[in-house]
């Protein structure tokens, strides 16, 4: 019992303070550098080598700025909203397996059997931060941002939820570690080249999985308020959107909460569709010929430790790649108009996800055991 509590604490502190929070601040840095490179600029390159200390300077600035509360806001909710923006994003990461095992300890904070349901339940709370911020600010632009956010949420949560159902049809469980284990045994959901890679059924199944992946990823874009779906904070229309009235660290919490939600969203996508922490290594020896080598923490001695660390590295490398895609999309696509967004959510993605469930169900029904 003590061991469980201690290791969980170590994992929580390690994942939140050593990985997620630095990743959040460097995601902001990456956003600024990549956007600059895309626009033929250089971006922040002054603080430290190649501007690498810029996030620290930004944090200092945010902490030292005056924390101004406008006179006519609803004080309690005004203070609650930034916390609600940040907390769900970090809480969601608790069920995501971010590595195999390290010193025999499974690298997931809470391996609960309702995995994905927990993710949806908690991640949807993030929208309350935005709505409450918009409402409590007592100002028309934040209010509009909050209203937009709530209607955007209901039009995307549906397809978000429906898009993952094919996975559960296939795996039969909600526990995220089992979904990763399934992908290790049978190949990644959208790229099943592990195991019998010439098996035609697996590749047929990859078609609905890929549709799921596309719908889910786009829904995550909307869920995290990223362009092209950043209507709640559309600068050109709503001044700053829901955080117009916020300043200093409270604003920073909204800002960082968005990036934390992005990281969590990417982690979920990686876990569900891209094989989680698993990266097969092509290997060849005389006994077995060519085969995929599974690296995890179950190997003996220091090899196991290295394997465990390698898995964690692979997981966050995949998350980083997805984050770069998020940034890339943001600096390419313009914002959707509001009615276009609703149409996309209700008329296209909802239907695509529904039909996709049937498609997956038919294939799974005829899948030879």
């Amino acid at each position: 019992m003590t061991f469980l509590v201690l290791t969980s604490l170590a994992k929580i502190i390690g994942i939140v303070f050593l990985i997620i929070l630095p990743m959040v601040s460097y995601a902001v840095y990456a956003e600024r550098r990549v956007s600059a490179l895309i626009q033929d600029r250089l971006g922040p390159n002054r603080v430290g080598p190649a501007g690498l200390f810029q996030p620290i300077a930004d944090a200092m600035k945010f902490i030292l700025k005056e924390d101004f509360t406008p006179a006519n806001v609803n004080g309690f909710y005004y203070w609650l909203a930034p916390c609600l923006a940040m907390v769900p994003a970090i809480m969601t990461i608790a069920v995501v397996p971010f590595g195999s095992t390290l010193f025999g300890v499974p690298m997931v904070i809470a391996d609960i059997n309702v995995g994905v349901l927990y993710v949806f339940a908690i991640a949807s709370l993030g929208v309350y931060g935005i709505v409450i911020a918009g409402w409590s600010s007592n100002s028309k632009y934040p209010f509009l941002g909050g209203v937009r956010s709530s209607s955007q949420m209901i039009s995307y949560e549906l397809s978000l939820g429906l898009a993952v159902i094919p996975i559960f049809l296939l795996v039969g469980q909600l526990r995220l570690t089992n979904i990763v284990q399934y992908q290790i045994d049978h190949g990644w959901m959208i790229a099943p080249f592990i195991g019998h890679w010439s098996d035609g059924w697996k590749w047929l199944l990859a078609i609905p999985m890929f549709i799921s992946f596309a719908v889910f990823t786009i829904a995550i874009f909307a869920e995290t308020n990223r362009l092209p779906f950043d209507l709640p904070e559309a600068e050109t229309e709503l001044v700053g959107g829901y955080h117009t009235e916020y300043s200093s660290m409270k604003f920073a919490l909204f800002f960082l909460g968005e990036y934390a939600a992005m990281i969590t969203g990417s982690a979920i996508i990686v876990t569900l569709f891209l094989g989680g922490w698993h990266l097969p290594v092509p290997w060849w020896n005389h006994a077995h010929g060519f085969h995929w080598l599974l690296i995890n923490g179950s190997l003996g001695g220091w090899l196991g430790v290295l394997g465990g660390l390698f898995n964690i590295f692979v997981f966050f490398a995949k998350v980083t790649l997805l984050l770069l895609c998020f940034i890339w999309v943001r600096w390419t696509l313009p914002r959707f108009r509001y009615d276009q967004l609703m149409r996309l959510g209700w008329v296209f993605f909802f239907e695509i996800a529904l039909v996709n469930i049937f498609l997956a169900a038919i294939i799974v029904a005829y899948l030879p055991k």
Partner: protein
Amino acid sequence: MAITVRRPNLSWSEKVYLPAIFSGMAITFRHLKNMLTGRTKVTMQYPEQKWDSHMPDHYRGAPALVKDEKDRVRCVACQLCEFICPPRAIRIVPGEIPSGNRFAKVEKFPEEFDIDMIRCIYCGMCEEVCPEQAIFLRKDYAITGYTRGEMVHDKEKLIEIGGVMHGLVLKWNEKK
């Protein structure tokens, strides 16, 4: 009368706008790649790299008073620049040159000559109007200070910026 603007007829591929999205992403990726491989020319890194050596001779930087070869401040305090200055940045207090002086026939010299660099618009009218070739716009452009007072260039500062100018008309040659 209401004019109906005809909507453009979009083709099927334009309606699904996926091709447009992918070509847009290809464009941004190309820009990213060209930046990373150093093929794109980027802006000059200002404080480290400066454009000073490429500055043209007609560049209009900070106005300054010049001395001639005989180490005389060429200004005769005629105050034309003070009058012409559009933002009224110049303030001159004229003084009389004592009779024993080598340049006594010049009669006047500026006791004080202040240019408020917060007001100066670098128009070059002072240089244009000066009958004595005494005030020139030099190439200094980074004029900074912590207070308003620091931004007022007094006579010493102006002469320091101006330095000695060679090859000017020697109007006040004492031998003439």
